Structures are given as C-alpha cells and as structure tokens.
C-alpha cells in the first residue's frame, strides 16, 4: 500500500558527506603531501646511496633518540606560528626550567627521597616554563609589541638569567637514575625504541587534537588568519595568544628536562643550538609565517628531515662540512614548494 501520499516526508537530518575524490584529497592536504613527498624522496636517496646504513635499525634508533629534543618544541611552536606570532625564547626556557629543577631539588634535600624531590623539581620546571610563556604573551598583548621583538629580548634575558643564577656552573644529575623518571623519560622500550620518541608522538597527537579538534585551535587559526575578524566575532584574542605562548613554555621546559636527563648532566647553556633546527622544522613542514595555515603533521615530518640530514650526510660519504649546505638547500627548496602549492590551492 502506498501511504506516503498524504504524509509529508519527514525531514531527515541531512548529513553533509561529500564523496571522496582523489583530487579533493590532494587539494586539501597539499602541504602535508608535499612534505611527505620530500621526506620519502630523501629517504629513498639515502637508502640508495648508503643501503648498509639505512636498511639497518640502528640509524632509525639514533634518529628517534636525538630528534625528539627539538621536535617536541616544534609542535607548540607550530601553533604559535599559525596564530601569526613568533617565539624565539624557547631555548632559554629549556635552561630556565632546569635551573628551577635544580633549585627545587636542592631546596627539598631534607625530604631524603630522590623520587619525591625529582617529582617536585619536574613540576617546578614545568611551572617555570608556563610562567615565562605567560610573561612573553602578557608583554606582547599588553604593550602590543610584535612577538618576534619581545622574544628576542626574553631569549637573552632568560638565557642570561640561567647563567647568573647558576654562576655558570654545570653539574651532574646522576641522582635521577635512582628514580623511575629516568626510564620513563629517556629509557628504551626493547632494543631500539627510545622513550623520548614516545613523548614526541604523544605531544604530536595532543597538539594535533588541540589545533584541529578543539575550540582553542579553531580560534588560533582565526587569529592567525584575521585577528580583526576574530575580535569582531567575539574571540578573546588576548587570552588565546597568551595561552599559545604558555604552551610553548611548558613544552620547552619539558624538552629541557628530556635533554638533560638523556645525558644526566646540566649545562647552564642548555638550549643553545636548538633555535634554528626547531624553527626550520616548522617552516619545512609548510606552516606559513603569514599565519592562518599550517599543520602539525607537516612539522613532525619536517623535524625528522632536519634530524636525519646530519647523520645521512656522513653516511652517504660526504664530509660533515656538507651538513649545513644540504640543510639550507632542502629548506629553501621546500619553502618554495610550499609557496607554490599554496598559490595553486587558492
């Protein structure tokens, strides 16, 4: 029996589900596919030129143990750059976090329990990172000074403060080996998988969720795209901008902990040498310095390209003198590629 003559067809909630097409997939993910292409191409070149090295697991274990120290910071830095801001102060936050760590460990000596002391010291380091990040954001928002300028200043300030507070002294952190934190942060799962890689993957996933699946990330994209529109539509742009700097602060302090635990040693110059590698990872990954676009996955791949080049240069038979040259070549070519892909996408 035909009954739908006199009944109005019920309005079913229409789901918008566009059919998957290969072209659309390529267009919407062009930046990530671009850097993935560079990644795979370089990898194949490395395997072809030094098969012995690149078909053995040891080299990948080495990449996974050294790359996370800066790659971890590149994740929140990506969020900062998407918001059309810049942070050059994160290397000094690594050092200042560890200065707090050492102070707290020393000041809690009366507890006589290394694990409790280290727990408190870690919390102090992370808190220091958050505070320095907050201060960066506060100065940028309150006085309207470009973040590039502010963080050049605070980079000098806090790396200087680390030297003053420690009087330039370096010391051993052997005591951390008595605590489970040592294995948790920089130990190994099986013969090849370093724990710092686990932390990198975790932070990458959290960063991706925050940027792509949370209101916070939506506001970051809006602010980077058009801060005026964001304000007119009621986004609290000051608060979000301060929060992105706090994120870099906390994660940089954590990266400082990992890097120091790895060698069980503290240098007050910790962080020196991390600046350009971290920034290069972000831009190599296709995040635009003009704000509003960028991906976490791109940065992740970018970091491993940066992390692999040094070892690869030597493995394929070139001298270490080539390293920077090849870095530069790959960065410049990739950035040109990203600009081309972005123009075509428009």
């Amino acid at each position, binding site marked *: 029996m035909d009954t739908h003559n006199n009944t109005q067809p019920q309005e079913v*909630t*229409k*789901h*918008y589900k*566009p059919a998957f097409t290969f072209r*659309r997939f390529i267009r*919407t993910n062009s930046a990530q596919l671009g850097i993935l292409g560079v990644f795979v191409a370089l990898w194949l070149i490395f395997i072809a030129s030094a098969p012995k090295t690149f078909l053995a697991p040891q080299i990948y274990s080495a990449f996974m143990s050294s790359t996370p120290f800066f790659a971890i910071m590149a994740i929140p830095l990506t969020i900062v750059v998407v918001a059309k801001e810049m942070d050059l102060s994160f290397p000094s936050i690594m050092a200042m976090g560890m200065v707090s760590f050492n102070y707290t460990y020393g000041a809690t000596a009366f507890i006589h329990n290394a694990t409790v002391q280290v727990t408190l010291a870690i919390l102090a380091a992370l808190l220091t990172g958050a505070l320095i990040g907050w201060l960066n954001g506060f100065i940028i928002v309150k006085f309207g000074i470009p973040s590039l300028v502010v963080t050049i200043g605070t980079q000098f300030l806090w790396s200087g403060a680390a030297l003053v507070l420690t009087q330039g002294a370096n010391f051993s952190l052997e005591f951390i080996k008595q605590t489970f934190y040592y294995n948790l942060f920089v130990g190994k799962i099986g013969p090849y998988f370093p724990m710092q890689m686990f932390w990198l993957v975790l932070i990458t996933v959290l960063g991706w*969720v925050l940027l792509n*699946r*949370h*209101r*916070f990330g*939506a*506001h970051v*994209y*809006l602010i980077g*795209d*058009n801060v*005026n*529109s*964001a*304000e*007119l*539509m*009621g*986004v609290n742009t000051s608060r979000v901008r301060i929060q992105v700097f706090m994120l870099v602060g906390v994660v940089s302090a954590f990266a400082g902990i990992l890097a120091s635990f790895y060698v069980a040693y503290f240098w007050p110059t910790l962080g020196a040498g991390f600046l350009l590698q971290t920034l290069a990872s972000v831009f190599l990954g296709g995040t635009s310095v003009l704000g*509003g*676009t960028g991906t976490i996955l791109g940065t992740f791949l970018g970091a491993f390209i940066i992390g692999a080049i040094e070892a690869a240069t030597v493995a394929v038979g070139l001298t270490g003198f080539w390293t920077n040259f090849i870095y530069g070549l790959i960065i410049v070519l990739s950035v040109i590629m990203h600009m081309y892909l972005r123009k075509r*996408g*428009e």
Partner: protein
Amino acid sequence: MEEYRLELKHVSKSFGEVQALEDINFHLGRNEVVGLLGDNGAGKSTLIKIITGYHQPTSGEIYFNGIKVDNLTVPKARELGLETVYQERALAELQTLWRNIFLGRELTTKMGFLDIQRMKDETHRLMTESMGFTSHAVSPDSTVGKYSGGEKQGVAIVRALFFNADIVVLDEPTMGLSLKESAKLISFVNGIKQAGKSAIFIDHNILHVYNVADRVVVIDRGKVAGEFQTKHISLNELMDKMVRVAETGSLG
C-alpha cells in the same frame, strides 16, 4: 511607555583627543528598520561598534528591551539577540566555510571539542536553504577567500541569521555588491522585518536606505542631526536635507 528593543541615552565616545560621538540618543523599536545615514567619518561605524559591544562608550547608557546593560561586550550583545553583518565582513578568508559560519561560537561537545560534523551539516543546510548557493565551488569545506563579493556577503548575512537574532545590524552591506546582489540584499532586509525582527541598516546609498527603512536617523560630526519617518518624507526632500546637513552641519 513603549519598550524599545534597543535604546542609547546620552552616549558619547572619544578616542584620545578625538570626540567621535557626542550625546547620542537613539532607539530601535520592535519590528522596526532604522536607516543610519551620514557622511564618511560622521560616526556611523563608531555608533555601530558601540551597539555591538566592540567599543565601550566613554559615557552614556545602553538599554536592551528596557534593561540597562553595563560593560557591553560582543558575546554579551549576542546573548541579548543582536547580530551584526560588519562592513569588513569579519571573515577569515583562509579558512573553510563551516569555520566561518561558526566563527567565534563553534559548536562543541564537552570540554570544548569541536562538533565538526554538526557544523558541516548546518552549513550545508544553510547554504542550500537560506543562501541559495548552488555553485559547486561553495561547499562547507571550500575556502571563503575564493568566493565572489556577493557570496562573501551572503556568508556574513546567513551567519547573522542562523543564530536567530532579534536585532540585525547591517553595516554597509551593499558595498562591493553587483546591482543584482544588492537587490537580493534589500529583499533580505525586508524579510527581517516581515519575520517580526528589527534591523539597523547603514548604507551610503540613500535610495537603498529609503526603500527599506521605516525611519531614517541622520548622523553628522558625531551628533544626531535629525530623524524622519520615511512615509512622511519623499526621497527628494531627504536628499536635499542630506546635502544641507553636509554643508551646514544642521538641518536648518
């Protein structure tokens, strides 16, 4: 006493030394469309930004539905049922359509996670039902920067409508639109009135304002220079008066 949807009493605004608005008294009735006219720099946009909560007045009072509102902010104005189509359109052009429709008030699940499917569904529905967009280039996942001027304006308008406003503020909505698109916009403003809502309509084009507004308020040099019911004045008279205001600063 009749209760207005919106009323400003003795509102002034200065930016440092510059007095942008001086002692403005303004009201918007229920189911009324008020046109704001005035030369460039007369203070129309400042007035709008005070009504929408973007600027705070230096002095004066703001009432919504007869209730005084202190420290009006953009989110607060929205809660009170006011939506704005800004002159600068307030779009994020590198972002997708669905992100623009829900700009600043994303639909979220618990803890602020985005409900992306629902936002895309709503966007898709609005596009086909309200915007009448049929072009394939305009999908929830397409980037707004690629749209034509009319399409962008459509996005800004539909965004204001979706959230069921009692008051819709349109700041220079016909700027950059083709004739056909302007006509569509005018019929849209008439639709607001038929739906029993109120609107404030700002435009350079006196003809547009005259055609849609019940009442016209003329702003000059930060002050209200005069107001007219459109049914009591002809278009020519209104134009003469506008010229006189521009020359002398008063309706004489």
